[in-house]
């Protein structure tokens, strides 16, 4: 049975009612004298608040300095001691405030994330300030974290989804720091404690930081509390990150990661695309929603609901600060690797060749506009949207005008975005699986290289 989006609909389906306006909650933004940017939003859904203290330096900066992964371990060890408190005191203080705290890093940022009861906000802010300004990096905690990181990496490098993502980034970004998503075991072994404190001193500075707070508080009072906790902090921003040349990519290539014993193939197809700052971001987002970014998308209809090849096919645009990329992925049984790739490319070529119908267009615009509103329902959702606007330096009214901008996009916009950013002809194909079962099928799609889980050529 053919399933098309234009299937006959029952006349009994209730029409949508009149829309209530979506009002973005009031934001209050400021910059302290020391350069710390702050953004506050009141949200009284529960008597809690959450915060994220971002630093605009992450693992790309560490990789550029020839110490991949250093940003990550710096963030992990950060929470294990300050000039005033040992690890156990920190953990018990957090528990006594009803708080959760985590620290970590992505390619472009390091972050201390926290959430706690609203009536304990002042001491929690003070603890966060202490971690940001007076972390002590105890030697014993560093060695313990190093071992945990090593064991964690060993497990990640047996995880198909991780391996596919890691290989795709290497292929798309070559010698650019974005090529490295995680350190090798040898790199982790080579870290020395002074390197962590140096990364911390250079990057955990107010002029490099953004504090986002959302929750059950009065914004004016919260602002005063933030100033008390953070205004004595000083330090200049680090130099801007380098942006080395990217590899030239011509034609499809297949990159097989051999995982012995795998009973499924993890397929990821990708190409470099755009950042959030691109004027085409929303066009591309809409094209992605129609292609494979929603449950009701062409890719899901095709390879899941019609053919049953996979459980969770999806496509996504990934924005890093300097560059972005687009991926299509699915985990499938070994026999249908070639069939899945054929359908992925069929759908890519279709959305690049033919305009989408008005109906499909309207459905997808409505989906994105609605999804955006759902993010307003929780403190987390509001914080996430606000943080991305500020980190990516998007226009001040970006959130307030987002839905209106989605609603004016046309079939022509989708076609143009798909042609520019879904680069079917030069797509890179990563397959993670047992080569005995997948190699012959994968090789049909282009010249192929094979590596093991550690990245060594086979």
């Amino acid at each position, binding site marked *: 049975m053919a399933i098309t989006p234009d299937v006959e609909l029952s006349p009994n389906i209730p029409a*949508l009612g009149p829309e*209530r306006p979506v009002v973005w909650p009031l934001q209050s933004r400021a910059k302290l004298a020391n350069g710390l940017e702050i953004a506050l939003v009141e949200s009284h859904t529960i008597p809690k608040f959450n915060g994220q203290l971002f630093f605009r330096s992450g693992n790309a900066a560490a990789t550029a300095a020839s110490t991949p992964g250093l940003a990550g371990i710096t963030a992990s060890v950060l929470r294990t001691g300050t000039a005033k408190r040992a690890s156990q005191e920190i953990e018990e203080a957090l*528990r006594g405030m009803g708080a959760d705290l985590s620290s970590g890093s992505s390619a472009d940022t390091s972050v201390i994330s926290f959430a706690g009861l609203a009536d304990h906000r002042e001491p929690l802010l003070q603890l966060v300030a202490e971690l940001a300004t007076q972390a002590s990096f105890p030697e014993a905690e560093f060695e313990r974290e190093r071992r945990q990181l090593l064991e964690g990496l*060993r497990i990640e490098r047996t995880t198909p989804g991780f391996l596919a993502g890691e290989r795709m980034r290497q292929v798309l970004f070559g010698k650019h720091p974005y090529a490295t998503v995680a350190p090798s075991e040898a790199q982790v072994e080579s870290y020395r404690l002074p390197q962590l404190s140096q990364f911390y001193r250079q990057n955990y500075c107010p002029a490099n930081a953004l504090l986002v707070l959302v929750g059950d508080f009065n914004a004016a009072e919260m602002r005063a509390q933030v100033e008390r906790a953070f205004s004595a902090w000083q330090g200049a921003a680090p130099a801007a990150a380098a942006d080395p040349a990217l590899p030239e990519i011509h034609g499809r290539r297949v990159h097989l990661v051999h995982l012995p014993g795998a*009973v499924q193939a993890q397929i990821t197809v990708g190409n470099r695309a755009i950042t959030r700052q691109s004027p085409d971001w929303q066009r591309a987002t809409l094209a992605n929603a129609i292609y494979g970014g929603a449950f*009701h998308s062409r890719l899901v209809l095709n390879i899941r609901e019609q053919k049953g090849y996979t459980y969770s096919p999806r496509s996504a645009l990934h924005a890093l600060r300097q560059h972005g990329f687009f991926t299509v992925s699915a985990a499938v*049984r070994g026999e249908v690797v070639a069939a899945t790739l054929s359908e992925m490319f069929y759908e890519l070529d279709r959305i690049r060749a033919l305009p989408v119908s008005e109906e499909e267009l309207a459905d*997808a615009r409505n989906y994105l506009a609605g999804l955006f509103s*759902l993010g307003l*329902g929780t403190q987390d959702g509001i914080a996430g949207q606000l943080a991305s606007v500020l980190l990516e330096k998007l226009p001040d009214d970006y959130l307030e005008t987002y839905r209106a901008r989605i609603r004016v996009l046309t079939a022509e916009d989708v076609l143009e975005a798909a042609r520019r950013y879904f680069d079917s002809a030069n797509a890179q194909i990563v397959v993670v699986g047992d080569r005995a079962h997948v190699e012959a099928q994968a090789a049909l799609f282009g010249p192929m290289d094979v590596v093991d889980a550690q990245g060594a050529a086979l």
Partner: protein
Amino acid sequence: MIDLKIPIETSTLANGLRVVISPDRTAPIATVGVYYNIGFRLEPRGRSGFAHLFEHMMFQGSANAGKMVHIRLINSSGGVLNGSTHYDVTNYYESVPSNALERVLWLEADRMRALKVDDENLRNQRDVVKEEVRVNVLNQPYGGFPWLDLPPVAYRNWANAHNFYGDFADLDAATLADVQAFFRTYYAPSNAVLLMLGDVQPEEGFLLAQRHFGSIPAGPPAPLADVSEAPQISERTGVVEEKFGALPALAIGFPAPVRLTPDWYAAAMLDQALHGGRAGRVYRRLVLEKQIAVDAEGGIHYPVGDLFDYNGPTLMVTRIMHKPEHSAEETLAEYQNVLDEVKQKGIGEGELEQLKIKFRSDYFSMLEGGHGSYIPRYGLMHCMACFTLFDNEPRLVNTVLRGFLEVTPAAVQAVAQKYLVPAERSIVFRQPVAKVGA
């Protein structure tokens, strides 16, 4: 002061469908859930994995909404949807801009009234479910550990002990007749609760519920299944091979108290003392101090549920990934030391005070979110649904905190002594077969 004041209105339709509405008009969005009192514990023998496969079939078409229509109408209304199968309940839920509320109710009513699926749909979803099992279990390091590994070791009643995701042979054996029989047996309105949260006025919500669900025939009451377990008199152990990862792991389970009993409230505090993150006694001792393990976590009904969403036997579970240079025996001995300390010395007033503050804080977060940022109030919905189906009182979400906050140090020590009994524990060892980099 301790009680919450979440507004909750309830009503029951003539066909037995219970309706629960919790209005909050802050944002123009609504979350709708339909919960059925059937989970994977109650699926038929010889049909392991069927409750979950059936959940997939509920998206394959109903009398007036064919395959993909349900998904298309929710997405194109600006909403998201999903379903999930648990031990004792199965849920279907949507978050949408509130102008789509009636459309969502129409869709949920249509599939409560009549499934319309064929063999092609069943074959298709069987394939999809097999890939789901591969991606989540068979092709992942530590896949299914310990949620699929512990039950066969810990339980003797098939209802509790079988493979909930399903043996592939059992999935292959499922027929369309099984699908329709399961639907008739367990998906009647009297075995369900409909929930609406967010931007909905209660009077209007009840009116819409009556309009769309009111004429669905009541159907026979669902049969009661026996999920009871005979008391355990000696330790049970099992071994499962780990194909991908190189770290040895083990999981320990102790039978947990019955919900809403005094022991249950105290056990929740004991659980926080043991498993409450990095300050918890197990993580602190095994990972931070002794450094025998690289990770340790756990909880009551962990890891596929929580304190509130089970209605029968469950375990307090601890999951430990330990270093190869420390043996499983050494790891277990140190873990036992942690338990023995609580049993012998109890926990202090100060520690319990912290545990209660953290518990209260976690409870708020669970109610507000609990399922990513795009299903607002999923946790509140889930909790109200379980309290309705298990206890016929959704308002327990407002009062249940009291029981936890009244727990005394003596009660925590007493439940530790009563429940953390070596003869009643079950242990699964997940043993690596591969060498690193092989």
